[in-house]
């Protein structure tokens, strides 16, 4: 059952060939069998999942089922889930039972999608490997020596291993697309504001954006339809009519102009990854698209700019973790300051502390202009590069990451080298544009490679259709590690 597309699952559920109880139990059985090794789930919720599956089956009987009713989902542990532990993979929130649902969670509950559990991630979404989790690293299903990417590494791993048909993720600097590439699945970061941030534990609010992680672009389009939409509780939620992201699946790519930024194929890109990405672009050309050279000259300024701005926002957002209203509190504080300092010192992991400290420093008197303001100016330059590039093309294509998945432990002592590995995804977040990663092949080491497609604001449907058309003529997205096939 785990090899079916979402569309096939939906058809079988509606035809009465399978029940949601059967489908959900199938995934729970697979989680029980495989997750001890992968460590992709932080929390599994079998009782809730089965109860929701039964309710979904009632809807099929009553004739009130929707397209995704009865299809189980896994939520990244950054989404608040009422009554379920929401840890953000941090000791700080190890004891936190969310008192309400994130908007995305309540949307998918309304549709009737049983919740399988919460997936592992980099602590507070700050990382590119999922190794900084308080609950230990997640393994890449394709190679247990490799990381799944991050921060939505658990989500990517559960899709790749068939431990959930769909998963939610969030992408602040590449945290949906990079793990999607590393695990050989499809993941889209929508335009900033397309999906409500309400109930998502905030990291960097002007970047954070949620999106679907699935096996195929078609599945992602269906899931994004359920996730997106205006929410008055998020002040940056886009107030506009929600597009139908699946409506243009099936449109021809004839005439599509693909921009190829020379800067994305330069020094530092693994030659094998380059070949695979170029082959994928050639395949898309065969479908009627043409390529044009474009330039993103300020690409190298994006990483330092992001690592000023995101930690600056984080230092503010994470000031709420003070040991007073929720989360970890140190033992026997001597006074209020001691309680703040030790609760935060003991509750946060090393990388989270680094980002809060560096963010606080960048915002402090004497450094604000040199760091924060400068970074905001570079943000505009990076955004303007894209605006100019889209004058001569419809979408931009390139690699998601400069290499295949790193080995576990490879980057843990050198955070700057880890930061630099996000060089292709970060510019997209700075600009607030949508971007998708679709599986494009495998390197000789057996690890997957993703094709990165970036479009202008609100071009999600186009990106999903390009991914879908590519997946009609390739089968990379159908591949599954051998040990998880049965």
């Amino acid at each position, binding site marked *: 059952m785990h090899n079916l597309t979402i569309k096939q699952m939906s058809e079988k559920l509606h035809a009465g060939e399978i029940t949601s109880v059967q489908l959900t139990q199938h995934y729970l059985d697979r989680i029980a069998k495989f997750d001890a090794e992968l460590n992709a789930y932080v929390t599994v919720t079998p009782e809730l999942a089965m109860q929701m599956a039964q309710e979904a089956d009632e809807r099929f009987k009553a004739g009130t089922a929707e397209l995704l009713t009865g299809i189980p989902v896994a939520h990244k542990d950054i989404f608040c889930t009422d009554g379920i532990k929401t840890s953000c993979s941090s000791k700080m929130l190890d004891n936190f039972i969310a008192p309400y649902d994130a908007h995305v969670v309540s949307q998918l509950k309304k549709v009737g999608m049983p919740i399988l559990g919460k997936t592992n991630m980099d602590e507070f979404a700050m990382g590119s490997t999922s190794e900084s989790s308080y609950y230990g690293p997640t393994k890449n299903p394709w190679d247990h020596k490799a990381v799944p990417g991050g921060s939505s590494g658990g989500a990517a791993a559960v899709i790749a291993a068939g431990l959930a048909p769909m998963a939610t993720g969030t992408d602040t600097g590449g945290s949906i697309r990079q793990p999607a590439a590393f695990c050989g699945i499809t993941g889209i970061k929508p335009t900033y504001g397309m999906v409500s941030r309400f109930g998502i534990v905030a990291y960097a609010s002007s970047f954070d954006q949620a999106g679907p992680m699935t096996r195929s672009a078609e599945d992602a389009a269906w899931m994004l339809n359920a996730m997106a939409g205006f929410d008055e509780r998020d002040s940056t939620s886009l*107030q506009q009519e929600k597009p139908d992201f699946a409506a243009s699946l099936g449109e021809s790519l004839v005439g599509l102009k693909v921009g190829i930024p020379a800067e994305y194929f330069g020094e530092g890109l693994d030659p094998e990854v380059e070949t695979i990405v170029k082959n994928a672009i050639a395949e898309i050309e065969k479908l009627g698209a043409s390529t044009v050279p474009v330039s993103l000259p300020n690409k190298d300024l994006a990483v330092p700019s992001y690592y000023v701005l995101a930690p600056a926002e984080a230092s503010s957002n994470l000031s709420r973790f003070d040991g007073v209203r929720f989360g970890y509190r140190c033992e026997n504080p001597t006074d209020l300051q001691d309680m703040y300092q030790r609760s935060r010192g003991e509750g946060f992991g090393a990388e989270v502390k680094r980002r809060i400290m560096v963010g606080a420093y960048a915002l402090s008197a004497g450094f604000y202009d040199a760091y924060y303001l400068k970074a905001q100016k*570079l943000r505009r330059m990076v955004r303007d590069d894209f605006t100019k590039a889209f004058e001569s093309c419809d979408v931009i294509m390139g690699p998601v990451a400069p290499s295949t998945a790193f080995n576990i432990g490879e980057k843990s002592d050198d955070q700057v080298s880890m930061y630099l590995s996000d060089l292709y995804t970060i510019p997209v977040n700075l600009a607030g544009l949508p971007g998708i990663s679709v599986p494009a092949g495998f390197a000789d080491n057996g690890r997957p490679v993703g094709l990165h497609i970036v479009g202008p604001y609100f071009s999600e449907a186009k990106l999903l259709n390009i991914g879908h058309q590519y997946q009609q003529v390739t089968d990379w997205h159908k591949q599954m590690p051998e040990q998880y096939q049965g």
Partner: protein
Amino acid sequence: MSLGKTEVEYISRLAAIEVKADEVDEVAAKLSNILDLFAQMQAADTDQVAPMAHPLDQVQRLRVDEITEQNQRDKLQSVAPAVEDHLYLVPQVIE
């Protein structure tokens, strides 16, 4: 840029995060590496560029000043480390 013990203590206070004495050197080294990355920004000429705070050119949405939320005090306080009579307990601040 290389940070020393004094700067780390200052940043620790700014961020309200305890840095233990035996962690200071490592924290100083790693934060210094990140500041070296920041230094790359200085090469860019930004004199004519306006700062960009946000990806969307949107006006802040306003709403009618009406109470829309239910009181959920008990539920919200159920996750607090220490509560008494609906008040959050913290170490004594004023003698």
